[in-house]
């Protein structure tokens, strides 16, 4: 146990977490350079494309220290996005130390700080690393003093590294051995193992990634999970190299995998504790939380016949994504579909893309929204509304509450004004400013979650020329002056376009949606009136003129096949549209409200 070190890497996105990991794996010959595809730890195509680690995994390395002892270093990868902060916290709970990687050219960013706080809360030994020191724009000294201010370490403790040139890689390994404490735990105590991640493997079923805190887990042990209180058998146990390596047992302090006879990942909840049925632990490890979706959206099959296919696809996705929730819902405009809950916008986009790419589903997505608490007049009854179409009529509503978050925004000081302005536009409540160094401010705001889920991050980036960074945590529900805004096409309400907005923004929003829809809905054979209304009151209107011309001028011998195929293609395009009343709405219109720029 004394020769085990469990650690993770925390970093702001793009600061080089994955390349540092590759460097460590290569140096320890866990993988050869040839095997090291770019960003090894990121398995999914989507992850590699987006350059972010969505699901954490772990890998075991062996390192011969100069003390002539061979150490086992378990690197536990952490998701790099705020949507997955709970998962990050569970990965951290599986470690005793963390590399804090900061980009030499970028310096400390919002995510560096928020992840660092999580790591400190988890009681981890922090090893600061400045990465990309080979960059011409590296400002090593500035970043050093930022880190010193942030964690109160000694400047000499900071490792200078470049994942690209492999500088500092060995120093990192050496320091991990020397500074990160070995796991503590009692091998003779009842079994307590933490699930820090789980995946679904098409051949093997659900697989848990675990860290044994106390006791020993062996194959064929009869075990239970505290959260689900279900009984399973440990079918296979092992450690994680580039592939799974069966070891038949994991002792105290070990990191590895467990294949129980579980049918999907919902039995293997991240943060849950495993113990033996006989002579097991009395209590689970602390820190387990049920995952709760924060963002909701309707997903509908483009062709209503594909409803069952979409359900199957969602069922399969759910098998390896414990955070995905969905229930059937019906929309007058879109037909039968599902209301889905996601951890955040990124999670939502990933699910959509996976449905399209991996499951070949053509889907229409409605504007995402948060979950509202609506208190009714007279009865005072509280209803939870996660679909704007279900919002009670305005006269029945006493008041509405919406979720708020606390945001951390790190920005160069010259953009503080811009950030302030953007935050005010987003109904932010200013709380506090601290300076990381004389040129960088760390601003604290509280925002309604609904204001930051769509375009806040993009706007923050553009208002700060890409320099500001942002992270947030959920803080609870607060009352807001919210109204339901409906969109009507030729007098027919389109339920899937209804939104809940703050009253102060409703007029502007209504006007923009009308304009955007005018752009996106193609001309029809008749004029189309577009209206935005609150209750019975129309607050904005515009119209789409009737189509005047759509005919190919030429059609002779050779053109006939081509023309027929063109018509067939256009018919196919029409089938992909959604019909509301007599108006055909292209799919992108349902999400257009996301891009309501002038």
């Amino acid at each position, binding site marked *: 146990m004394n020769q085990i070190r469990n650690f993770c890497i925390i970093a702001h996105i793009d600061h080089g977490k994955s390349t540092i990991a590759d460097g460590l794996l290569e140096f320890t010959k866990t993988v050869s350079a040839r095997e090291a595809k770019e960003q090894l730890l990121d398995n999914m195509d989507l992850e590699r494309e987006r350059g972010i680690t969505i699901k954490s995994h772990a890998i075991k390395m062996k390192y011969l220290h100069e003390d002539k002892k061979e150490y086992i270093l378990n690197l536990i990868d952490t998701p790099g996005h705020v949507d997955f902060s709970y998962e990050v916290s569970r990965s951290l709970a599986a470690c005793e130390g963390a590399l804090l990687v900061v980009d030499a050219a970028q310096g400390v960013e919002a995510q560096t700080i928020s992840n660092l706080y999580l790591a400190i809360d988890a009681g981890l030994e922090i090893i600061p690393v400045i990465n990309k020191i080979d960059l011409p724009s590296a400002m090593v000294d500035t970043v050093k003093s930022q880190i010193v201010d942030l964690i109160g370490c000694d400047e000499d403790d900071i490792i200078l590294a470049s994942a690209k040139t492999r500088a500092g890689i060995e120093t990192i390994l050496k320091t991990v051995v020397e500074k990160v404490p070995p796991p503590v735990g009692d091998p003779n105590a009842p079994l307590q193992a933490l699930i820090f991640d789980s995946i679904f493997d098409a051949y093997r079923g659900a697989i848990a990634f675990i860290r044994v805190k106390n006791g020993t887990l062996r194959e064929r042990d009869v075990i239970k999970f505290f959260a689900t209180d279900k009984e399973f058998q440990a079918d296979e146990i092992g450690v994680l190299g580039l592939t799974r390596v069966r070891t038949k047992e994991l002792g105290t302090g070990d990191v590895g995998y467990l294949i129980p006879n579980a049918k999907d990942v919902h039995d293997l909840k991240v943060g849950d504790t495993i113990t033996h049925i006989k002579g097991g632990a009395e209590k689970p490890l602390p820190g387990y939380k049920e995952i709760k979706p924060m963002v909701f959206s309707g997903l509908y099959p483009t062709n209503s016949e594909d409803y069952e296919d979409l359900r199957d696809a969602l069922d399969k996705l759910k098998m390896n994504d414990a955070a995905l929730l969905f229930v059937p819902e019906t929309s007058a405009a879109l037909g039968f579909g599902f209301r889905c809950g996601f951890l955040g916008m990124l999670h939502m986009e990933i699910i959509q893309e996976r449905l399209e790419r991996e499951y070949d589903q053509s889907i229409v997505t409605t504007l995402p929204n948060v979950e509202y608490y609506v208190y009714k007049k007279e009865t005072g009854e509280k209803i939870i509304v996660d679909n704007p179409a279900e919002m009670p009529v305005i006269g029945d509503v006493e008041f509405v509450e919406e979720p708020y978050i606390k945001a951390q925004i790190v920005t160069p000081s010259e953009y503080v004004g811009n950030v302030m302005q953007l935050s005010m536009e987003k109904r932010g409540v200013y709380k506090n400013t601290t300076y990381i160094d004389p040129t960088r401010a760390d601003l604290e705001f509280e925002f309604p979650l609904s204001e930051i889920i769509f375009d806040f991050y993009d706007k923050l980036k553009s208002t700060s020329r890409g320099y500001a960074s942002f992270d947030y945590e959920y803080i609870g529900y607060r009352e807001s002056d919210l109204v339901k805004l409906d969109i009507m096409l030729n007098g027919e309400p389109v339920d899937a376009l209804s939104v809940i907005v703050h009253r102060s923004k409703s007029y502007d929003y209504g006007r923009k949606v009308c304009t955007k829809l005018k752009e996106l809905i193609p001309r029809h054979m008749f004029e189309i009136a577009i209206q935005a209304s609150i209750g019975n009151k129309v607050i904005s209107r515009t119209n789409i003129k009737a189509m*005047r*011309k*759509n005919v190919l*001028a*030429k*059609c002779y*011998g050779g053109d006939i*096949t081509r023309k*027929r195929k063109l018509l067939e293609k256009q018919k196919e395009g*029409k089938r992909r549209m959604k019909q509301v009343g007599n108006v055909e709405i292209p799919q992108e219109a349902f999400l257009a409200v996301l891009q309501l720029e002038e």
Partner: protein
Amino acid sequence: MKESACYIHIPFCDHKCIYCDFYSIITTDNVNSYLNALFKEIDYYSEKYSSTHSFNTIYFGGGTPSFMEPDYIAKIIAYIKQKFTVSDYAEISLETNPGTVDRTKLKNFFEAGINRISIGIQSFDPDELKFLTRIHDKETAITTVESAYSAGLENISVDLIFNLPNQSKEKWQTNLETAVSLPIKHISAYSLILEQGTILNKMVLDGKVKMQSEDYDADLYEFTIDFLCKHEFRQYEVSNFAKDGYQCVHNNAYWRYKDYLSLGTSAHSFMNGERWWNYSSLKMFIAAVENQNNGRVNGERINRLEMIEEYTMLALRSYGLDTLEFIKLFGNDWLEKNSEYINRLIEDGFFIRKNNFIKFTPRGYAVCDEILLNFT
């Protein structure tokens, strides 16, 4: 014998116009081997079809057929007549570009058997001609029409293009006025189409040229129909207008779903319900004819539904849908299925019903594709 149409593609041009997406080449190499290949194709198909099909129209399209020597065209006509039954009254058309012919050459074409010419004038306006990269000017265009007429070619058609970038309604009207003042019988008036792969398309994508709005295009189109009608050119297809008795027999063959045999590069044939097409590349065409005695690269058999789709499209784009003939050919389920839609289009003024015909109104022609899309 089935009365059908014969199309001959002449791929040679002296340059490529910016809006053109037809197969054409800018060299006269291979002119003789092309002629031999055409003869071989005629041989091949005459064995298959000369006992069942006769021609009442031969059409030389391009490319620029008038770029060829009259003798070249004469040989082809003579060979077709030798191998197939060609009606004594057959319409024999030649696409002609101003600037490639003079009176003598036109006279020779006439003597070779050409009795109708279609002149690619496109515009009489110097700026527009320059924009379209045509080689002729207004005077050449007018002279070409007059020379053809005096050479004995009294069945003359001209092509014009409207909705050009920056084209004012006045300029278009002037073009039309000039055209109708000439001794012509037929006008094809095309709205400028952006075809993929054309130079024009690239210019638009690069933002160098801006196309006009849909509403403007519709205005010009409706104006065109109205103007030409007043000058006794009756619309008989989306883009085609003719004086009484001068509708193009060849085009009508396409639109009335008659059989047509097409020879040469990129030519599309439709015989006995089968459609096929030839290699586009001159070299590959010639090689194919060497190997298999015809230039065919691919084909398709059209199923009933596709046939209905094509038949209705072609009929509605031109002379209207003859419901009696339609029922005879395809039964009446399609008409029943769409009867509600058809009635609504009549109510809304896009169709008119005349006896057993359903026809577009001018407003209907303008949105023809949209209307076709909504048939089920």
